[in-house]
C-alpha cells in the first residue's frame, strides 16, 4: 500500500520553563490553541489526536483524556504515546500514520510534560529508573546524567574528545537560547561557567545537562489535499525513521555511538531520498552535551569521532556547515520530556517557513532534520521535513 503525502499545517509552542502558573491541561492548551489558529482549521476537522507524554511527575494518570476534554477535542480518536524522551516524536509518528494510511485527513500531535510538581531528587530518581530498573537501578542507582557520562568516557577515550569540546556545545546552545523568547534559559554562558560548574556524573557537569522543564508543543498534520487548501506553505513530512535498542545499557556493543540513531536516520533518509549533507538546519537530541556530539556523528553530519572538533570549529552555528539547535536545544530551551519531539518539529517548521527571526538559518535545499532520542538510545525517531513535497 502506498503511503499518502502528509504535511505540517499548524504549529504551537508554549513558553518552556518552571511553569508553576499552569496545570497539565492548561499548559497543553497553550500550544494546541496556537497550532489550531496557525493551521486555520476548525477543531471538528481533527480526526485523530496523539498525546506524547511520560508522566508520573504530575498528578494525572490519564493525561490524554484530561487534555482532550479541556481543549474540547472529543469525540475524536485519541491515544497517549510513550517512547521516553522521544514521546513527542512518537505522537507525531502516530498522527502521521493515521493520515498516511488514509484513516483520517487531519491529525494533532500534542507533546507535553509537567515535571516541576515533584522535587528535583524525585525527578532524578524517576529518570534514573528509565532503562532496566531491576538490573541497573535497584542495586546501582543509575541516573540519566550517569548513563550519558558513560558514553562520554568511552568517546573521550576512543576519539580524544575533550571536556572543553563538551562545554562548547553548552555555550553554543545557550547563545541561541538567549535569542529564543520561549526558552527556559535565555542567557549566554561562557566556557568557564560550564567548566567550573559542579560535577553531576563525571565528566558531565551541571551545565552539560539539560534542565528539568515544564512545557508543551503541538503539531497539526494534514493530507495533501487538505494541506493545499488550508495552507499556502505546507511543510512536508518527507520521511520518518524509527529504531529501538536494548533496555540495559550493558547489552549495547559500543558506547561511542547510539545505534538507534544510526538505524533510524538511514531509514528516514532513504524514505525521503536525501543525503546527510542535504539539510539546511537541524534539531538534534542534546539532553547532555555529549549527546549532541554523538548525534552529529551518528546522523552523518560529520565523520565518526570528529563531533568535538565540529562544534569547536563553529560548524554547527548559524552560518556554519549545518546550524544545529539554534533554538537553544534541550540544553537551554529546556527538555519537557514528552514535549521535546513536537518542539523540534515546531522549530524546524518555522525555520523552513522563514519565520525564525534573528535565529533564521539560510534555507537553500529547503530540507530540515529532526532527531529525537528516547532514553539512552532505547528508541530513536528521525524526521525529514521539506518545503517541497
Amino acid at each position, binding site marked *: 500500500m502506498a503511503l499518502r503525502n502528509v504535511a505540517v499545517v499548524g504549529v504551537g509552542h508554549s513558553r518552556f520553563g518552571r511553569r*508553576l*502558573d499552569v496545570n497539565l491541561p492548561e499548559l497543553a492548551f497553550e500550544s494546541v490553541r496556537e497550532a489550531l489558529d496557525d493551521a486555520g482549521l476548525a477543531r471538528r476537522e481533527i480526526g485523530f489526536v496523539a498525546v506524547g507524554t511520560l508522566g508520573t511527575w504530575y*498528578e494525572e494518570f490519564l493525561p490524554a483524556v484530561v487534555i482532550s476534554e479541556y481543549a474540547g477535542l472529543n469525540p475524536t480518536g485519541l491515544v497517549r504515546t510513550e517512547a521516553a524522551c522521544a514521546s513527542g516524536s512518537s505522537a507525531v509518528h502516530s498522527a502521521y500514520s493515521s493520515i498516511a494510511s488514509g484513516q483520517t485527513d487531519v491529525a494533532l500531535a500534542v507533546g507535553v510534560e509537567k515535571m516541576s510538581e515533584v*522535587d528535583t*531528587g*524525585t525527578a*532524578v*530518581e524517576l529518570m*534514573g529508573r528509565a532503562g*532496566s530498573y*531491576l*538490573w*541497573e*537501578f535497584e*542495586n*546501582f*542507582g*543509575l*541516573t540519566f*546524567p*550517569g548513563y550519558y*557520562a*558513560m*558514553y*562520554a*568516557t*568511552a568517546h573521550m*577515550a*576512543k576519539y580524544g574528545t575533550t571536556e572543553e569540546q563538551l562545554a562548547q556545545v553548552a555555550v553554543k546552545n545557550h547563545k541561541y537560547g538567549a535569542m529564543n523568547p520561549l526558552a527556559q534559559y535565555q542567557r549566554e554562558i561562557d566556557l568557564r561557567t560550564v567548566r567550573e560548574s*559542579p*560535577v*553531576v*556524573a*563525571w*565528566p*558531565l557537569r551541571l551545565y552539560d545537562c539539560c534542565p528539568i522543564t515544564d512545557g508543551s508543543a503541538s503539531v497539526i498534520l494534514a493530507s495533501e489535499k487538505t494541506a493545499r487548501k488550508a495552507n499556502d506553505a505546507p511543510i512536508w513530512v518527507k520521511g520518518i525513521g524509527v529504531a529501538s535498542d536494548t533496555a*540495559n*545499557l*550493558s*547489552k*549495547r556493543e559500543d*558506547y561511542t555511538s547510539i545505534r538507534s540513531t544510526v538505524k533510524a536516520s538511514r531509514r528516514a533518509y532513504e524514505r525521503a531520498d536525501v543525503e546527510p549533507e542535504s539539510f539546511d538546519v537541524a534539531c538534534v537530541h542534546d539532553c547532555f552535551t555529549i549527546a549532541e556530539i554523538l548525534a552529529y556523528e551518528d546522523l552523518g553530519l560529520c565523520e565518526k569521532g570528529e563531533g568535538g572538533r565540529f562544534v569547536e570549529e563553529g560548524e554547527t552555528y548559524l552560518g556554519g556547515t549545518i546550524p544545529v539547535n539554534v533554538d537553544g536545544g534541550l540544553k537551554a530551551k529546556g527538555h519537557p520530556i514528552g514535549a521535546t519531539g513536537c518542539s523540534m518539529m515546531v522549530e524546524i517548521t518555522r525555520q523552513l517557513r522563514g519565520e525564525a527571526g534573528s535565529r533564521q538559518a539560510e534555507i537553500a535545499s529547503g530540507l530540515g532534520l529532526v532527531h529525537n532520542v528516547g532514553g539512552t538510545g532505547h528508541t530513536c525517531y528521525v524526521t525529514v521535513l521539506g518545503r517541497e513535497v
Partner: protein
Amino acid sequence: MKLKPSQLRSAHSLTLSYEIPIERTKEFWDGIERGKVLTTRCRDCGSISFPPQTDCSECLASDVEWIELSKEAELEAYTKITYPPESFRDRAPYIVGIGRLKEGIRVLAWIMGADVPELEVGMRLELAVEKTPEGKAGYFFRPAQKEGIS
C-alpha cells in the same frame, strides 16, 4: 519580588514499592549469596545472556542452563555519580562501570577500590562478590590484581 503562583498540595500521597518476581532467576540471586556470579546459556543456540533470563532473546527457546561467569573484564565505559537519585542519597558518590567479560557479554556494576584518576577505558577489572557493610551480598568490579600476583 515575584510572588509564587498559587499551588495546591495534593492531600493524597502515594508510596510505590514493588514486589518483583525473581523466581525464574533464583539461581542468580542464590549464587550471589554463595559468592558466585551465575548467568544463563541457551541450550538450543548456545548464546549467553547477562542479565540472566530463562527465555532466550536470540532464538526464543526456553531451555537454558546456568553457568558461572569468568571474573576477568575490560572496562569499556564508566562514571562517578555525585548527584544521586533520592533513594541513593546516603550511598553517593559511587562509580559505575561497564565491563566486557571474556564470554563477550557485558556487566554493569559499581567499581570499588579505585577513583576517577585510576580509571581508564581498556583497563582490566575483576568481577567480585562481597557483602556490603549492611550485610547484603552484591556483585561489583575492582581493578584486577597485577599479572603474576593473582
